[in-house]
């Protein structure tokens, strides 16, 4: 008896191309079925008056037998002379893609089944693409149902050429393309006399030719903290070593916090407590530290000389399984190793049509589609590019309790920081504006809209707030009417009261800005001196926008009926009628809303905001976290 972990394979392909039949046949040929299983199923079929199908061996469920399609991943074992296998039967029906991914993601190699008669179909391509995306690099192709095309070599060569061309487009070279009749058992375990023109291996031969995947011991140490236990006097940090090696005495740095300590002991239990000196990738371990630093679930222990990337932004190729499409501004939970982060979809850069590998830009990502996206997180994420270390380069997305997608992280994202250990521990005590900006994806600031009543300030402000929110911004409107219900409810409209009103709003706006938010204010604020005082509180954060809609247009709109009342003498000291308005001398932006749609006006303002407050942090070097 060997003590080898079974080699995990997945069988994929278009619906009805014969995946389950092939699997059933493999099990039968390798003597893997329990005694009487085939006989029992034949009896069931006879009772139902239907011909026996090899697929029934896998489709053990009542519902499946009724529907005739596999609905979930089943795992069944067999062995060849070379080694044991676990076979994961992935279904080909379109709506069950999530199950296929569940199966395929844990496989070391795949068999792609294609019907010789129907040739390469949509699901053949989609499955091939997803296998590649999931990180599978070993794929063998079985061209099945060769009996239906009379074992015609020309037909086989045509299907072979078609699938090789597609796979080459995604950088995959199949290990073998085998002509097969699963039903007849040809070229499954034994070479068939019906294909004298084929000199390659049988399906089982192709399987035995796959290389076994090794634990990533040689990669840099990555040990995501799963939990911290204090069952007794020991404080044990627990987790699985995803890659590399761990030794007693190693100085571990925890990302993203940057805290560091040495491994004091590697703890264990095997009937009684034991300690070890070293452990490696694949092992679930527990260890104690020589220094009582506070570390928690989600942090990734690594060695100082080989740190992961730490960034608020992740650029990834995502496959989407959600019922609702993925859209810019969407908020999701990202789970990477043991960490969880709240993320916003900052951009959908490309949508990939897996059937012809064409790229489309923009729009939303529908169910079962693949796209390249940028995700922005409130908290710093520790990760590696998938190509560098798959274990730390992949994640799942959660929405409303459900896993709705998965992603693999591309090479360098837009804003990343290779944090050097040492200058990082200060973060606990100090959150800098740059750190806030990095977390939010934008800087804090005050966008001060000034203009006549009816010029469109509030309407524009509210729409801008909404659109920024959808983009994941921390934005809030302070509106003239609204503050007078609370903060300034004791004030009237005399010049003194107006000045105090603006002073209070200015102070509050700057506090919000310091907290990292983008504050949009909508106040007439008619006096230049009042506005200048607000600017003086924090000149760098203050951006004055003159909403310069002419008084004739404002009076024509008169949304609150105030101009009418003022003209009738019912409102004393009404700006523009009976009180002055002093336009800004040098505003940062002038916005005239006359004759323009709201969308157009807000669009102009949004572009300004994104330019000024949005991308600044991309250029920040070493932002102190």
């Amino acid at each position, binding site marked *: 008896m060997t*003590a080898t972990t079974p080699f995990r394979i997945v069988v994929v392909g278009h619906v009805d191309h014969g995946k389950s039949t092939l699997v059933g046949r493999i099990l039968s040929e390798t003597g893997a079925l329990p005694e009487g299983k085939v006989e029992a199923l034949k009896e069931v079929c006879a009772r139902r008056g239907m011909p026996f199908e090899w697929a029934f061996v896998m489709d*053990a469920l009542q519902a499946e037998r009724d529907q005739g399609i596999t609905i979930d991943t089943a795992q069944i074992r067999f062995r060849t002379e070379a080694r044991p296998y676990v076979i994961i039967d992935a279904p080909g029906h379109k709506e069950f893609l999530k199950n296929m991914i569940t199966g395929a993601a844990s496989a070391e190699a795949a068999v792609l089944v294609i019907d010789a008669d129907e040739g390469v179909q949509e699901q053949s391509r989609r499955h091939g693409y997803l296998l590649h995306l999931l990180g599978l690099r070993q794929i063998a192709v079985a061209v099945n149902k060769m009996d239906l095309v009379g074992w015609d070599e020309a037909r086989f060569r045509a299907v072979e050429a078609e699938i090789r061309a597609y796979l080459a487009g995604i950088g995959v070279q199949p290990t073998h393309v085998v002509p097969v009749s699963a039903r007849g058992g040809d070229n499954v375990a034994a070479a068939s006399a019906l294909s004298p023109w084929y000199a390659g291996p049988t399906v089982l031969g192709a399987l035995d030719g796959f290389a076994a995947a090794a634990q990533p011991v040689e990669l840099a140490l990555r040990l995501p903290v799963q939990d911290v236990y204090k069952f007794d006097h020991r404080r044990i940090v627990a987790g699985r070593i995803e890659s590399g090696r761990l030794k007693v005495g190693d100085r571990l740095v925890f990302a993203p916090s940057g805290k560091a300590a040495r491994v004091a002991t590697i703890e264990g239990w095997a009937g009684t407590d034991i300690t070890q000196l070293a452990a490696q990738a694949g092992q*679930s371990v527990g260890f104690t530290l020589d220094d009582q630093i506070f570390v928690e679930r989600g942090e990734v222990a690594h060695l100082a000389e080989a740190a992961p990337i730490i960034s608020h932004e992740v650029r990834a190729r995502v496959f989407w399984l959600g019922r609702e499409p993925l859209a810019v501004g969407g908020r999701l939970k990202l789970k990477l190793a043991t960490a969880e982060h709240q993320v916003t979809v900052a951009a959908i850069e490309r949508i990939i049509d897996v059937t012809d590998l064409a790229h489309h830009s923009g729009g939303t990502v529908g169910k079962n589609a693949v796209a390249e996206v940028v995700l922005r997180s409130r908290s710093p994420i520790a990760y590696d590019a998938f190509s560098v270390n798959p274990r730390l380069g992949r994640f799942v997305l959660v929405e409303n309790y459900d896993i709705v997608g998965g992603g693999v992280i591309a090479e360098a994202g837009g804003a990343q920081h290779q944090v050097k250990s040492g200058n990082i521990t200060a973060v606990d005590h100090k959150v800098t504006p740059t750190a806030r900006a990095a977390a939010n994806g934008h800087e804090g600031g005050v966008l001060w809209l000034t203009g006549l009543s009816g010029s469109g300030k509030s309407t524009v402000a509210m729409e801008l707030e909404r659109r920024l929110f959808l983009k994941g911004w921390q934005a809030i409107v302070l509106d003239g009417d609204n503050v007078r219900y609370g903060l300034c409810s004791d004030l009237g409209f005399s010049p003194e009261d107006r000045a105090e009103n603006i002073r209070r709003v200015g102070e509050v706006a700057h506090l919000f800005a310091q907290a990292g938010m983008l504050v949009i204010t909508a106040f007439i604020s008619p006096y230049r001196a009042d506005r200048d005082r607000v600017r003086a509180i924090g000149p760098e954060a203050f951006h004055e926008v003159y909403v310069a809609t002419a008084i004739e247009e404002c009076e024509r709109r008169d949304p609150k009926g105030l101009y009418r009342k003022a003209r009738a003498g019912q409102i004393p000291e009404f700006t523009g009628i009976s009180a002055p308005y002093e336009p800004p001398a040098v505003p940062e932006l002038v916005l005239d809303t006359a004759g323009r749609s709201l969308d157009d006006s807000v669009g102009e303002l949004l572009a300004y905001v994104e330019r000024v407050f949005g991308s600044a942090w991309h250029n920040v070097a070493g932002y102190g976290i």
Partner: protein
Amino acid sequence: MNDLDVLESQSIHIFREAFNRLDKIAMLWSIGKDSNVMLWLARKAFFGHVPFPVIHVDTTYKIPEMIAFRDRVAAEWKLPLIIGSNREALAGGMGPDQGRVNCCSALKTDGLKQVLREHGFTGVIAGIRRDEEGTRAKERVFSPRNEQAEWDVRDQPPEFWDQFKTDFAPGTSLRIHPLLAWTELDVWRYIRREGIPVVELYFAKGGRRYRSLGCAPCTGTVASTAATVDEIIAELETTRIAERSGRAQDQESEDAFERLRAGGYM
């Protein structure tokens, strides 16, 4: 790492995920070999401790040796044991003579649901394996149940890259299956390697032994001369007889076991 090391490490990872991510969990202990291995793995995962209750659903029809074993091991390992029974159904005369599937549903499935409800557990760890039966092969490691503890095999969550479903709506609960990837042979090889105690009923006496343990009226023996763990391992390496072939409730109809599981049976 050999294959048992890989399985052990994976199971420990699952135990730790369940303990960290779920509010209130418990582990089922059927007294069978698999749940003894689970107890052992839990103690490995938590460094000698079992930090959650261990539930035994007692149908009162269990083979007496099982109960004796349970009480001995629970005392020795200082297990936080909860014993649950569907007293109402038992008082109403429920037994295998009322139909085996009915009996299993009432005494095991409903008995379990009652304990879970009574204590407010949101997650329960169970020792099922994929290789036991075709229905169990379809399971997830973290498998959600609705408010009635029912399993929807047709709409299961995706589960990949060891990212389990750990978020769920109020009212739903999870079954967690740390042994899903193990085989019967793995379990016995691990029992041998680690020296894990099992009920004597597994070892052959007079040419027969129990291969799977359940209630006395519905659990039969198989012909075997395997009287030690080594001999059981040798036997399993060559047998082609299904593990649950001695369990009468599975054979009642073509889809008996599937219906039991959809209703919440382990």
